[in-house]
């Protein structure tokens, strides 16, 4: 069998023997350690962001309709709801209306978003505890606590649709029982209340009819959205959970990208140390390089030898750093070691979630940087005249 190219035969031995020389072994350790540290930091930072973002996403998406359809004025919402319910992937269709309003209790008024629904409480009002037999308004637990109301209490809901009176437009008001509480969570951007459409009649402006659609899952919702568009009358607008949270998802994506770029700088600095390390290694082995050149090793082959040597040092650091990052992230997540103030955040610990594709990207970037720096560090070697090494 034909032996491997010279670089592959010699680089592992050269890498092992760098330990004999204090200066080169120190620089190699700094380079490998720096790359390992940078990769571990990158893996940990991204795992923390992923963990937090996954929790945040779950929290927010639990309070967001999967699909929302705004129908054009005059559309027959009831007939369309029946038609859309038959579409593959659709689990439930209900009519709803949304408007601004005020909730009054104990002399205190709070501005709320009023959601009027048909049939049943929409899925975007999670963990609702409803009082059996009471029909009325469902309020977020946080708002209920602030207003000091409990299920069964009476509150007043003021709608945005005014009544014209001789003294001018007056707001319409209706007394309603609190039919139950839902978990508003810590990510609610404003207070919401929900009530059946028939109770809301007259309170809300006569706006365009809207439909909320529940499907088997978030991905199904995105797939179904396309199919629904074809069935809807012109002028209809379909909004997916992605559309409804686009600014948030953009911010999360941006945060991740900026974090990646910032922490990557550690790897860049460490990879530059690798350039210095390779320069010192070449200098200390210059006479041996001359001997190899005299025996017929082409300068480009010697360049490849030292590029591979750089990849062994840097790649070893990157893999060690990746392993370290994954192990530490797993430990921090398993034992909830990073605590968060529960009063401030919606979680009492920082979750870590390692995404394998992201880990692969981090390792890929670290190896690419290592390779580029190694090539840069050995460019002089690939262009050397063999006699320069022999003469030394």
């Amino acid at each position: 069998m034909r032996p491997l190219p010279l670089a592959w035969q010699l680089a592992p031995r050269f890498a092992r023997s760098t330990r004999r020389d204090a200066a080169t072994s120190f620089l190699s350790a700094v380079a490998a350690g720096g790359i390992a540290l940078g990769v571990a930091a990158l893996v940990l930072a991204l795992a923390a962001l992923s963990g937090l973002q996954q929790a945040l996403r779950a929290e927010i998406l639990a309070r967001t309709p999967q699909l929302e359809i705004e129908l054009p004025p005059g559309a027959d919402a009831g007939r369309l709801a029946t038609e859309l319910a038959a579409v593959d992937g659709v689990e439930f269709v209900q009519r709803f209306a949304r408007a601004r309003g005020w909730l009054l209790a104990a002399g205190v008024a709070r501005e709320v978003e009023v959601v009027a629904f048909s049939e049943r409480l929409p899925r975007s009002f999670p963990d609702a505890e409803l009082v059996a037999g009471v029909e009325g308004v469902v309020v977020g637990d946080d708002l209920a606590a602030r207003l000091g109301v409990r299920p069964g209490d009476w509150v007043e809901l003021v709608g945005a649709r005014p009544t014209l009176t001789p003294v001018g437009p007056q707001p319409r008001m209706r007394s309603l029982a609190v039919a139950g509480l839902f978990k508003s969570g810590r990510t609610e951007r404003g207070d919401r209340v929900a009530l059946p459409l028939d109770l809301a009649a007259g309170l809300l402006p006569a706006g365009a009819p809207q439909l909320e659609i529940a499907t088997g899952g978030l991905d199904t919702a995105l797939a179904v959205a396309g199919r629904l568009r074809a069935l809807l009358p012109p002028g209809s607008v379909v909004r997916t959970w992605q559309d409804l949270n686009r600014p948030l998802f953009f911010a999360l994506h941006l945060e991740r990208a900026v974090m990646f770029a910032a922490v990557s700088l550690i790897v860049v600095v460490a990879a530059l140390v690798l350039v210095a390390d390779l320069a010192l290694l070449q200098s200390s082995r210059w006479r041996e390089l001359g001997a190899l050149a005299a025996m017929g090793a082409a300068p480009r082959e010697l360049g490849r030898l030292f590029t591979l040597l750089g990849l062994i040092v840097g790649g070893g650091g990157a893999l060690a750093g990746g392993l370290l990052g994954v192990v530490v992230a797993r430990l921090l997540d398993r034992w909830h070691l990073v605590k968060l103030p529960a009063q401030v955040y919606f979680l009492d610990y920082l979750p870590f979630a390692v995404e394998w594709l992201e880990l692969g990207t981090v390792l890929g970037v670290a190896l690419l940087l290592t390779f580029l720096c190694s090539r840069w560090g050995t460019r002089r070697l690939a262009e050397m005249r063999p006699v320069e090494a022999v003469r030394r």
Partner: protein
Amino acid sequence: MSVEVRARGLVKSYRDGERVVEVLRGVDLDVAPGELVAIEGPSGSGKSTLLHLVGGLDSPDRGELAVGGRALAGLDAEELARYRCQTVGFVFQFYQLLADFTAAENVLMPARIARLPLASWRRRAGELLAAVGLADRATHFPGQLSGGEQQRVALCRALLLEPSLLLADEPTGNLDPASGEQVFALLLELARAHGTTSLLVTHNPGMARRCARVLRLQNGALHELSR
């Protein structure tokens, strides 16, 4: 197998700061296949430079140089490396063994570079080491060998692939007289046994006289001293 070396009007100069030093000023050289030629001359006269040109480690500023009828001018770096690998064996004054490899591994290095099957060449390396009396030192690293032993390893390394041309640059220059004599005798014996065309740079007139021809390099030109 051996080759003929033919050079005409070789010129080589170096830049030393502002100064240009012309080391070779039109060197003519003819070495017949299998011939053993010594080159002597004062320090700095360009002996090593001439050897480097013939060995394809450097290229002349002017002049023609052909080894085995093949002109070296115009060969690119890869072709010159192949020429050194297939045709030339080098022995240096300071041995230039690879410190992290054992004596046997050092001897085997040309086969690694040429990517030849190592198993059969490992046997050949063992035979060569045995021939120079180092069979029991095969697994020692250069740092564990004396200067004479290291140069004998370097000699085995140079001869492993049975090169057509052996170039030795003061091979005994760094050895004590006894070791130097032993290495030189081995070099002559092996070169003659293989019929290798050999160019030997030496400061030692006694050793030079034991070669078939002696050339003297002085003032940038080569003169025949004895045949």
